[in-house]
């Protein structure tokens, strides 16, 4: 099919093609390949927004309900996980939707942009399919051009659909269009970033990993900037370093500014151009960073299933350690500006952040402990998912064909990740502690933060053990484990807004230990969660011993 399409691409009469010859046909081919993915993304993001809107309608039925929400959303934590909060002093449903929940749609759009570009460029090259395509009448830059065009089409669709959906709910047309466009703009900027990262490495996972790290950095930067903006002191300009920040600075339904999106477009154009320039400097199929030879022999410690499991998880552990340390220092050093900003804050606002004691500092530090615990939970789940990939791609089979038992194999992997959990919490706690101590001049905060972070270890262990059990018993339903983390996030941050009853709240494994130093650490909870995690891990090992191994070939 591809061949006939590409045959028609031959420029009739001219005899020569340009670097983008064949783009149109490639684009049609991509649309055909993405006939499920494209609607899934472009309908999924508007549907997510619809869900938020419907949920908010049920939560806030009266103006008083809505006013009650402001207390949380105007706080630094609200800013960190929402946005700069334009117009929140005169809150309306649509302002709250765009200003608080909009962030998650923006993140989704960023993912859409970078994943689509990587999928159609580096993945194609890596698998060798692009070689077949390029052997036809297809220009050097056609593949990247078609991938970027496809992403732009998807971004435009998302922008229009979200704008139309918000307008149809009775919100202001101009504001809805600005908001929709701000979502599409994030997709474009991260498509541009991915156009650069796919040139750097030969491997699609490395390319999407680098672009994903940029998305994470964009989230953190604007989080810091927005926190500063909400309390009126600190480096609020940080938000302007982030492509997500530009989209949020449009202030939909408040100022309806279009001009920040010009920054997004310029950035997308600049990164895409860089991508083209870099791609001309490398060979087909190669990265700019050449692969290096490694040791011809295994190190002497690399013997036995545990050492081997550690070797496989090592690179990811190093990456997570660096990221958590940097994020910890960044958020920790924000402690003093936050305290300054709240000196003149209204009492009820401080109440929400710091509880009855009015201890804003403890509230912030406790909340950061929970945040880091959720992030380390993501690490644990991804680590278990890597086991599934290991098995599905046929690398587990030859290991189990040696004298490594199934118990030893899965047990070693669980053990390595289980040790990685307190290690990463420790690293995050050290980062936060050093940042907070340096910012406030109170060295004692380091100890508080270490306890506050490490106390969450059993909760993350429980998530890890549950994920391992799902993998061992029914690998296909493993993604269900994300629900636990998602619920942990909702219960942790939005409990004051959602007014969830205590019994429902406590379904989350993260709501038992206590957010030290705001709350005491519950020793009983630590013991119970640990025992529970141990039991689930045992069950995982037992289940894995019983089932057939998935074939690689």
């Amino acid at each position, binding site marked *: 099919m591809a061949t006939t399409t590409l045959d028609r691409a031959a420029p009739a009469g001219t005899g020569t093609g340009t670097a983008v010859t064949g783009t149109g046909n490639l684009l049609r081919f991509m649309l055909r390949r993405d006939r499920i993915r494209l609607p899934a993304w472009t309908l999924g993001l508007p549907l997510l927004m619809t869900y938020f809107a419907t949920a908010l309608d049920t939560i806030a039925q009266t103006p008083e309900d809505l006013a009650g929400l402001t207390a949380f959303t105007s706080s630094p934590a609200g800013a960190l996980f929402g946005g700069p909060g334009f117009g929140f002093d005169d809150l309306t449903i649509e302002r709250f939707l765009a200003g608080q929940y909009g962030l998650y749609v923006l993140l989704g759009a960023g993912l859409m942009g970078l994943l689509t570009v990587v999928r159609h460029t580096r993945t194609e090259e890596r698998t060798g399919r692009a070689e077949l395509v390029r052997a036809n009448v297809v220009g050097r830059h056609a593949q990247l051009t078609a991938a970027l065009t496809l992403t732009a089409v998807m971004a435009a669709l998302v922008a229009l659909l979200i704008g139309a959906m918000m307008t149809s709910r009775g919100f202001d047309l101009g504001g809805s269009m600005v908001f929709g466009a701000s979502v599409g703009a994030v997709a474009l900027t991260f498509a541009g970033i991915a156009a650069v990262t796919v040139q750097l490495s030969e491997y699609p996972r490395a390319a999407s990993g680098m672009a994903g790290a940029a998305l994470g950095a964009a989230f953190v930067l604007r989080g810091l900037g927005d926190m500063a903006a909400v309390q009126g002191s600190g480096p609020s300009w940080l938000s302007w370093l982030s492509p997500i920040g530009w989209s949020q600075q449009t202030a939909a339904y408040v100022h309806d500014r279009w001009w920040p999106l010009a920054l997004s477009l310029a950035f997308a154009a600049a990164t895409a151009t860089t991508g083209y320039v870099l791609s001309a400097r490398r060979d087909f199929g190669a990265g700019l960073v050449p692969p290096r*030879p*490694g040791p011809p022999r295994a190190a002497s410690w690399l013997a*036995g299933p545990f050492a081997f499991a550690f070797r*496989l998880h090592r690179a990811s552990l190093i990456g997570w350690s660096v990221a958590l340390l940097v994020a910890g220092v960044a958020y920790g050093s924000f402690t003093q500006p936050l305290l300054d900003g709240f000196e003149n804050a209204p009492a009820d606002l401080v109440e929400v952040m710091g509880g009855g004691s009015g201890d804003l500092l403890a509230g912030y530090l406790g909340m950061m402990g929970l945040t880091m615990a959720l992030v380390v939970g993501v690490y644990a789940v991804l680590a278990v998912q890597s086991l599934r990939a290991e098995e599905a791609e*046929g690398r587990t089979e030859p290991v189990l*064909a040696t*004298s490594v038992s199934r118990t030893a194999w899965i047990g070693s992997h669980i053990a390595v990740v289980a040790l990685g959990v307190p290690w990463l919490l420790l690293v995050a706690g050290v980062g936060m502690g050093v940042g907070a101590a340096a910012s406030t001049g109170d060295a004692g905060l380091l100890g508080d933060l270490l306890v506050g972070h490490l106390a969450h270890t059993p909760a993350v262990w429980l998530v890890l053990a549950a994920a391992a059990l799902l993998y061992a018993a029914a690998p296909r339903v493993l993604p269900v484990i994300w629900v636990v983390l998602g619920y942990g996030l909702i219960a942790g941050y939005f409990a004051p807004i959602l007014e969830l009853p205590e019994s429902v709240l406590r379904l989350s494994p993260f709501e038992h230990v206590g957010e030290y130093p705001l709350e005491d650490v519950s020793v009983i909870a630590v013991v119970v969660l640990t025992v529970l995690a141990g039991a689930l891990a045992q069950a995982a090992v037992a289940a894995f011993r019983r089932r*057939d191994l998935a074939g690689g070939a």
Partner: protein
Amino acid sequence: MTAAIDIHHLDKSFGRVTALDGLDLRVDAGTVHGFLGPNGAGKSTTIRILLGLLRADGGRARLLGGDPWADAVALHRRLAYVPGDVELWPNLTGGEAIDLFARLRGGTDPVRRDELCQRFDLDPSKKGRTYSKGNRQKVALIAALASDVELLLLDEPTAGLDPLMEAVFQECIREVKDAGRTVLLSSHILAQVEVLADQISIIRQGKIVESGSLTELRHLTRTSVEAVTDRPADGLANLAGVHGLRTDDGQVRFEVDGDQLAVVVRELGDLGVQGLTVRPPTLEQLLLRHYGDRLVRNGAEGVA
């Protein structure tokens, strides 16, 4: 002779798909046993059951005197396995992977490892993800051949190897055999099995349809004969077991059933044979008889 592998009536299905349907297989210790069949016939499933990676639904399998599922770990110390599609860890070099497999199995001969790396012309310092398919295959082969084990389970081990490396592989298997070890060599590369195997079993749709030595199997098939004779040889067509006789330019071509060959050759001698080419049946023809002309021949399947 003791059996290294002894399988009775093994059944295995995946959902509604029956992979193994009463499979019987016996591999004598110290022999190279060819395990032939087309894709999807159940070769890999059989080997995975022998490795304890899959659990059989019914039947009995013994491996080196033990139970493949219950005694998996103890048995794996005494065998090495090469899958048909070797996947390596992207971040580990080939050399690291070889050492790792050897250590996980319980020891290897480092001298032999280096010698095999040279013979197979493998650069062990490259990362797993930069290897081509053939080189990944070499990594698994070296890891298996360097280890001191009683049994090698090789599942289409030379897919992706070039002819030169294929020759090295055959040499290595002969050495393994001379050392008194057992090899189960699954393949659809017929020439390879023909050259190496003492015994052959042919699997089709989860069942062994034929089993025996190459000589034993040959009498089941037809030998191709080309001859130039003084006197016209058309009369041969009337002999029992002669098929498809054609003559042109004084040359006669026909096929003859294996057990009638002696009679036919005597007749050819009487006709004053000047030139004679006799081609033994290839395994391709053996397979063709089982998978090619299924409609024509129904009765001949109960041989195994």
